[in-house]
């Protein structure tokens, strides 16, 4: 076991990928000389050189599209978009090319591309730098959408993402980059197809992903001191969604709370609630609870940003309502 941060865990994954396969290169705004907007790629330019670590102009559509073309041409690009809000400038390329080329070509052309996207709130970055928009991408067939929320996932999702023959988007929580914890020295690749039960429990299932996992785990801890046994399911993968793990948990606990930093309307929490209603309605002993982001562009002031997001108390209150 060693103490490490999310930033270092992501960087270790990148370094390993660059060292393992010459087809892999990094490309994005400030990934090289600057060391990464959030310092994730610091040192990699010095270590691997300008051929492998490429600074791009502020041209999201062009460099994401170029990543798609390079993947078609046999390379394995890892493209970083500075924040999730800016990814919308490349949404055309991601949706109309990366996600659809395989289908439109009748299976001839795959796009083995990884796109890393810092995402989420927590740094007072206001309404154009900190939203939780992963659900937009989870709506799109042809993509794989990953939301690492643990150090092991931060360290271990890149290798299988690069081995995937299809485009993979990795949404990295900005608020987590500096967070530290213990990671086994032999931490390696992780499964990028399944959700994970982070904490077993018997009374209520708490579903979370990405930035909502930490407050959800804290809520489960608090509930335990009150004698409520909460099971925490980390979705990890928003597309293709592993609904089986969620349904199995609900079948054990018979109560469901979905925690989501995204806006409630049309969010991944809505998808989870709908799937459980479709497939496990009669397992439920209480109405499904959703704890979501307030439907407002994220405000700058710290107290308002906090108030706009699901907090530990909100999750605890929802779980209490569910267990009656």
């Amino acid at each position: 076991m060693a103490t490490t941060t999310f930033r270092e865990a992501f960087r270790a994954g990148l370094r390993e990928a660059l060292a393992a396969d010459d087809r892999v290169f990094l490309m994005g705004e400030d990934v090289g000389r600057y060391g990464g907007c959030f310092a994730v790629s610091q040192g990699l330019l010095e270590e691997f050189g300008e051929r492998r670590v490429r600074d791009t102009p502020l041209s999201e559509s062009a460099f994401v599209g170029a990543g798609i073309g390079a993947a078609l041409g046999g390379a394995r690009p890892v493209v970083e978009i500075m924040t999730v809000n800016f990814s919308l400038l490349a949404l055309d390329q991601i949706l109309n090319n990366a996600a659809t080329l395989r289908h439109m070509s009748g299976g001839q052309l795959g796009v083995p591309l990884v796109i890393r996207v810092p995402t989420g709130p927590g740094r007072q970055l206001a309404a154009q730098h900190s939203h939780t928009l992963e659900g937009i991408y989870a709506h799109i067939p042809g993509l794989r959408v990953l939301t690492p929320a643990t150090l092991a996932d931060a360290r271990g999702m890149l290798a299988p993402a690069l081995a995937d023959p299809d485009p993979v988007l990795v949404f990295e929580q900005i608020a987590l980059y500096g967070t530290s914890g213990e990671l086994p020295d032999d931490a390696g690749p992780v499964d990028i197809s399944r959700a994970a039960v982070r904490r077993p429990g018997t009374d209520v299932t708490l579903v979370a992903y990405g930035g909502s996992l930490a407050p959800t785990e804290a809520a489960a801890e608090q509930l335990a001191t009150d004698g409520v046994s909460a099971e925490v399911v980390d979705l990890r993968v928003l597309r293709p969604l592993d609904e089986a793990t969620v349904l199995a948990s609900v079948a054990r606990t018979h109560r469901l709370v979905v925690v989501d930093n995204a806006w409630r309307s049309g969010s991944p929490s809505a998808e989870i609630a709908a799937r459980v209603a479709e497939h496990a309605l009669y397992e439920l002993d209480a109405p499904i609870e959703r704890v979501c982001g307030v439907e407002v562009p994220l405000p700058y002031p710290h107290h308002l940003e906090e108030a706009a997001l699901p907090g530990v108390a909100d999750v605890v209150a929802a779980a209490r309502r569910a267990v009656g």
Partner: protein
Amino acid sequence: MTDPKDALALHTAMTRIRRFEERCVELYSAGDIRGFMHLCIGEEAVAVGVTAALGADDAVVSTYREHGHALARGIPMEALFAEMFGRTTGCSGGRGGSMHLFDAARRFYGGNAIVAGGIPLAVGLALADSYTARPQVTACLFGDGAFAEGEFHESLNLAALWGLPVVLCCENNRYAMGTSLARSHAQTDLALRAASYGVRSWAVDGMDAPAVRDAVRLAVDTARAGGGPCFLELRTYRFRAHSMYDADRYRERSEIAGWQEHDPLGALVADLDPDDVAAAEAAIAEEIDAAVAAAQAAPREPVADLTRHVLAER
């Protein structure tokens, strides 16, 4: 003066495209082809000239007006008809239709229906070649409408900045759907604008197949030798409407007639032996009949396979 044998080959290739598209119109009217269909009649010299300058290992990125590019690149006619009929033997398995023709083996990467959407892909394909020090070049075809999109400018900047082996072939037919260049661009000299990125740029008579081929060849040689991207403005004209749905009310008939006097097929035919031309026409008619018949007999994909080709099958 073009060598007669060379002229006959170019003329035959262009005639093949025109007769193919004329048959497409009939099949569209009969309901065998559906969706949006964009014809390149009048622009055949671009398709034939660009592809003639490329090697088999080079890549082509195209737009939704790509029947001519696909045929000239060597995709079999039967696979193109079958694609437009939505049959499994289509070049995209029937999943794409007229706007999305693909052929991985021939390095033909679409078939992109988003204006300028293919340009970053072409830059990326060239990046992969440059990254791995392969001698291939990517030719990217797009219309003048793409010039109005930010993606074109972002891509040109990136290609120039990194000196990538991509040849940007702007098929300037003077209209972006129904809006003329003059009504949508403050500066209509496209080569001049492209040159501002430090990219070698020039304009070519796009109705002259040998001229297009020679210009693209020079650009391809430059790119292959490490000279970075080139931009070619291929000045051409479409004799037909933007798509089969377009009533074409935005152009004067006299303007179309004026351009038809510079028909790329007519430009070469004067020097050719009429018997050779007639023989080529007969062979093309036979090829089209056989291709349509085979495509019409091809199977439809079972609905049970609907969700195939979303992610890789494993």
